[in-house]
């Protein structure tokens, strides 16, 4: 049992399954809408993007990282 130093809230843990399910539906429909729009040739022009997307680029990690800082 991992020791936590704050109370994560029992309700919050249990509810995450429900939230995940709803999130899944939302993402699926967003994806679908995006694909339909692409297909129909209507896509929103990218406004100047101050915020990038969720991916962090994983560069190729060589094996000598412990001493190098």
């Amino acid at each position, binding site marked *: 049992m991992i020791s*936590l130093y704050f109370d994560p809230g029992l309700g919050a843990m249990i509810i995450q*399954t*429900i939230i*995940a399910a709803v*999130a899944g539906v939302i993402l699926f429909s967003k994806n679908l809408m995006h694909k339909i729009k692409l297909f129909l040739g209507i896509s929103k022009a990218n406004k100047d993007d101050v915020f990038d997307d*969720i*991916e962090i680029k*994983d560069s190729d990690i060589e094996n000598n990282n412990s001493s190098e800082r």
Partner: protein
Amino acid sequence: MNAKNAHSSSFRDPSGYVFIEDGDIKRVVNPVYFKQYQALKESGFYCELFKNEILIPHKELSNTDKEIIIKAEKIPFVTYPYEWSFNMYKEAALLTLKLQKYSLEHGFSLKDASAFNITFYKGKAIFMDTLSFDFYIDNSPWRAYKQFITHFFGPLLLAHYHGANQLKLLSNFIDGIPVKMLSSMLPFKTKLNPLLYTNIHLLAKLEDKHNEDYKGETKEATLSKKGQLNIIESLYSYIKNLELKEKSEWGNYYNKTNYTDDAFIKKSRIINSWVNTISPKSLIDIGGNDGTFVRKLDRAIETALVCDIDNNAVDFNHKTMKMNKEQYMLPLVLDVLNPSAAIGLNNSERDSFLNRIKAFAPDVTLALAVIHHMSLSGNVPFSQSAKFFGSFSKYLIIEFPKRSDSWVQRLLNNKVDFRDYFEFYNIENFKKCYLEYFNILDEVSIFDSHRVLFLMEKKC
């Protein structure tokens, strides 16, 4: 735990604590966290985060079986969440989600999602808590989820529906805004949105239910990794599109003053020549709006704090900073008449703005077009504002709008019958009071305006 001089905010996490030695920020890693630390190090996870400028880099100083000591790169000025503009707050929220997703993909998970884990450095939001990562246990829900809602999602939603000032609530609700409060403050229509309903309202309902039924039993909940990633991605995409509704009165500030373009350029030129003689490394611009004047400086500054009371101005500064990829700029929301207080345990967990700025000791303070607001709207006597600036400024470049200035006239007219009380507002009194704390090195009237620029140096 032998906390040698532990920092006053570093006491909750048994994995380790932060202490300051010779001006360096060091962190002790306790044995209970050794496994995680080694894994984070050897897998190259830390390295990747350093490379991507997501986590503040550190160097390992010593490694015994009692403790590991690491030294973090020093951040010149730490801003707290209640000092961020809306978009800065948004950036911090997105960073947390981004980091959790990345952690999951590499077998780790964030133990906590506190807004105080993040600050702004070199033009971006950066994560500071090196020990916040734990091993991901398959099919376990995200333990920091609720904290993410109360620290990030909730305040952002409140700001969206009720204005950016809501972000200041975090200075009172130091551990996030309670879910029940969020649920009651958000408008009814948010219950119709499935994402908002599940993440806020349903959460509040369930919190209630479980608080009453608590018999000391722990129910294990399961959530697939894909499920957790779905939550994170849906929140990310929703937050990314969140915007403020309000406009501010400072929007077109530079059109409303009584400057001709010429006067503006002259002001910039005078300030530039003064700054060039001083050669500062650090600077604070009080009432700096969107950073226009600081950007006009020829000299490269290492760190420039640009503060303003108006969220929209700071947001605009933030946007410009990100588009230009500026590393020296640090935007900040600040009410000069009520800067952030010291809060938390012993009222020293999160330091006051004034203590932080004193420690930062900026070489130059710019106070352009601010003193008339402090004196006339804020009713602050010159002696008090001089004392305020004197407490942290080495060199002070301050602009004094004379009584004849249009803004001053407008503010005086607003006083109606109290107008006579403000007879003190004139340049002679101003100089007299400021001479108590400063020597006046130079004084220049700006051509074609009713404003005078002063270069002052703090008396020893």
